[in-house]
């Protein structure tokens, strides 16, 4: 069996190599799993069934036309990947890694190779914002103190944020990160979490934010700050201190990124309070008709809203008259007025609203 495969390999190696380089990693991972099924003697580890199914769908959608839906070679363009030297070689190493990773996911220890691969990728793509040690850097938080990282088990939550980004929070989407790279990143982050020295972490703790005077904060809230014009401790802010703590509460208090009607907030359900911070637009059409709805898009040239029936509608700004009411305008103005003392006092007051 093996000698037959090696023989056919040689014949196909040339075009196999060229094409195999062109296809995506998914092809490899699916083909490897196929390879694993066909050649039990060559590969001892295999991916979980769900992963294989997902890969199978992706493979048949993207690669099946040339390589056949079962990776055994399709049209004249695509070689049999099961017989590819490239796949066999990478399958050998990686199936061992995959096995080790899946075995150890619960105990959260990872093979040194995978951690090293994650470290390299993290240094290249993530370190600028999160620090080389994942302990926080230029505008990016300490990942070891992240609730999301804490809740993550196999990278599914981290993966969602990495691939989709967090719009409005400065996290770009890295949609080209493949499964293997993601696994390596997760391995590196957990490894850091275990080994992190306190001295290199850039965490803001709830206990750091207890310097304000709640009474003074209440006075500011009801007086000079003007907060009471829109907010009420028994209304929208009732129990706020139970929902948000520390830095999250402080950031939300100062300003919250405008939502838009059509935008979801991936991976952030915990903080979702839909519709409260979305500006309202009123557009007057040339006919005199007015449409009011949640602002859906705005730039210098176009205004769009989601109308009361849920439809997105847009107009060139030159054709209509419009007004936009942004409930956060007062927060923006307040940023220039706050003293640091006011800020800490109001935070202390909000922390009493349990």
């Amino acid at each position, binding site marked *: 069996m093996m000698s037959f495969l090696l023989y056919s390999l040689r014949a196909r190696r040339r075009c196999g190599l060229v094409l195999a380089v062109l296809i995506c990693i998914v092809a490899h991972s699916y083909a490897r799993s196929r390879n694993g099924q066909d050649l039990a003697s060559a590969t001892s580890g295999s991916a979980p069934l769900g992963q294989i199914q997902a890969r199978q769908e992706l493979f048949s959608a993207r690669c099946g036309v040339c390589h056949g839906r079962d990776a055994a070679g399709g049209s004249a363009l695509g070689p049999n990947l099961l017989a590819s030297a490239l796949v066999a070689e990478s399958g050998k190493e990686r199936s061992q890694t995959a096995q080790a990773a899946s075995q150890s996911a619960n105990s959260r220890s990872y093979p040194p190779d995978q951690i090293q691969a994650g*470290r*390299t990728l993290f*240094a*290249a*793509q993530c*370190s*600028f914002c999160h*620090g*080389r040690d994942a302990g*926080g*850097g*230029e*505008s990016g*938080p*300490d990942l070891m103190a992240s609730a999301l990282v804490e809740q993550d088990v196999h990278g599914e939550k981290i993966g969602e944020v990495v691939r989709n980004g967090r719009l409005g929070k*400065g996290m770009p989407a*890295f*949609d*080209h990160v493949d499964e293997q790279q993601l696994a390596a990143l997760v391995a590196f982050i957990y490894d850091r979490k275990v080994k992190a020295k*306190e*001295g*290199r*972490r*850039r*965490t*803001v703790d709830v206990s*750091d*934010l*207890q*310097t*304000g005077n709640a009474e003074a904060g209440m006075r500011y809230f009801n007086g000079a700050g003007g907060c009471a014009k829109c907010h009420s401790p028994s209304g929208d802010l009732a129990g706020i201190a139970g929902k948000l703590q520390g*830095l999250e509460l*402080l*950031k939300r208090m*100062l*300003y919250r990124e405008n939502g838009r009607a059509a935008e979801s907030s991936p991976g952030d359900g915990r903080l979702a309070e839909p519709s409260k911070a979305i500006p309202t637009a009123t557009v007057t059409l040339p006919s005199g008709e007015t449409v009011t709805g949640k602002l859906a898009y*705005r*730039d*210098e*040239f176009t205004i769009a809203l989601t109308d009361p029936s849920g439809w997105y509608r847009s107009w060139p700004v030159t054709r209509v008259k419009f007004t936009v009411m942004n409930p956060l305008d007062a*927060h*923006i103005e307040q*940023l*220039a007025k*706050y003293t*640091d003392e006011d*800020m*800490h006092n109001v935070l202390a007051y909000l922390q009493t609203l349990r």
Partner: protein
Amino acid sequence: MKLVREIFPLAAVLVLASAFCGRASAQGIDPATLLKPTSDSWPMYHGDYSGQRHSHLSQITPANVHELTLAWAFQTGQTTQIKSSPIVAGGILYVSIPDHVWAVDARTGSRVWHYNYPPNEGSHIGNRGVALYKDSVYFATPDNHVVCLNARDGTVRWNVVLADVKEGYWSSVAPLIVRDHVLVGLSGDFDNLPGMLKSLDAETGQVQWTFYSTPSPGTPGSPSGGATGGNMWITGTYDPESNVVFEGTGNPTPVLAAQLRPGDNPWTCSIVALNPDTGKFIWGFQPSPHDTHDWDAVEVPVLVDGAFNGSPRKMLLQASRNGYFFVLDRTNGKSLLTTTFAAVNWSSGVDKDGRPIRNAAKDPARDGRLVSPDEGGATNYRSPSFDARTGLLVVSSRDAYGIYFSKPEHGTVGWGGADYEVFGKAVLRAIDYQTGKIRWNHDLGGGGAAAGVLTTDSGLIFTGDSVRSVMALRTSDGATLWHSAIGHVGNSPITYELDGRQYVIVASDGALFAWALPEKSVEQTRFGSHK
């Protein structure tokens, strides 16, 4: 028959080779032309040595700019955002992102060659562009190598290492060519490392000199007060008449934890004047003495010769990340004017030397300080442009607030604190350099930084908003005359003219877009007067 088969390819190679050699002298770049760039080129990062990013081309005008059409687009096929300024010479355009350089036909956008550097662990945060000297392309890699490529085909001539990526340095700069010197500054502020600018021999890659903006950690009697950092990660400018290079330097390290680096920490957050032949320090000016907010002063030091208070002056202009606009006498580094151009709440005025006075109460603290600008700054790497006709420095700016934290537990290595953006509003601002007054503001429609700026002699500005459009504005009043929603523009625009047609190039995500007047309009512009 066999003979023909063997000889023919050889003959073809010879014919091709001789054709190639014949063209070689016309392509690439003669270093002398860097002193006076031709209109068919954009031969270096800023377009010329002054850093003005201004073009004398005037085919595209306020009257016809609404006709602009897409001449071509070039897709890199990569998701990485293009932050670089392309370099153009001999009809070839060179564009880069971390680990990649492409040579592209500047007339059509078709690919000539692609160079792919191997995967590495240097920070891939951005690449600002390549440099061109004779027939060589110089490319700084994320892991601090400088690779010299044959401009004809992208093959490697040499590859030298400037610093150890394991120590925490990385590289993103577009090198600056001064005669046979290739000046390359390093990046990296997550570790306590001295800031370095190196000069390489353009032919061999040998290091000619190194300028350290700060000494190595632990240097006795350190003039920087124990600070490291001050990396020079944006391309400097050059005054050929006095043979002086001007470089902006980065923030000190530790970045937010400043207690262990008392004093002003020269020459971090500074503008320094250097001799390009020796690397010798001539003078320095500090926009942010003892910086505690990561507001490096690497923003382009723009060289302007003109009137100031009625007298002719050789000046240097900088709109700095800390929110201040500076005019210096570049012959001695003395301040002529200091004023703010964006929201600022961290200073208590300006000292007698024109330097902002830091208010220590706004230093990062355990319980947080609300500071303006935020860490991204009032402006950043995207280039401003100076238009001599109106006397305006046009800057992509932000009014922004952030919260800054630091406590002993954060340590004293690298960042040494934490900071978070709270709110930002992007505004294009035209600063009258003689008064520092804002002539006009143009709302860019979002909170994030927008694009770099290009001005032209016809009275046009090319830039991007912070939503998703490339735009042309009227320089005199900032009015929008044209736009196209291609996506967020991530680089600083350039322009050149080939075959009598002016092209304006901008990047959005992983694609380059070349704008020009329709061919028909080009004909009318050129021959309209003969009708």
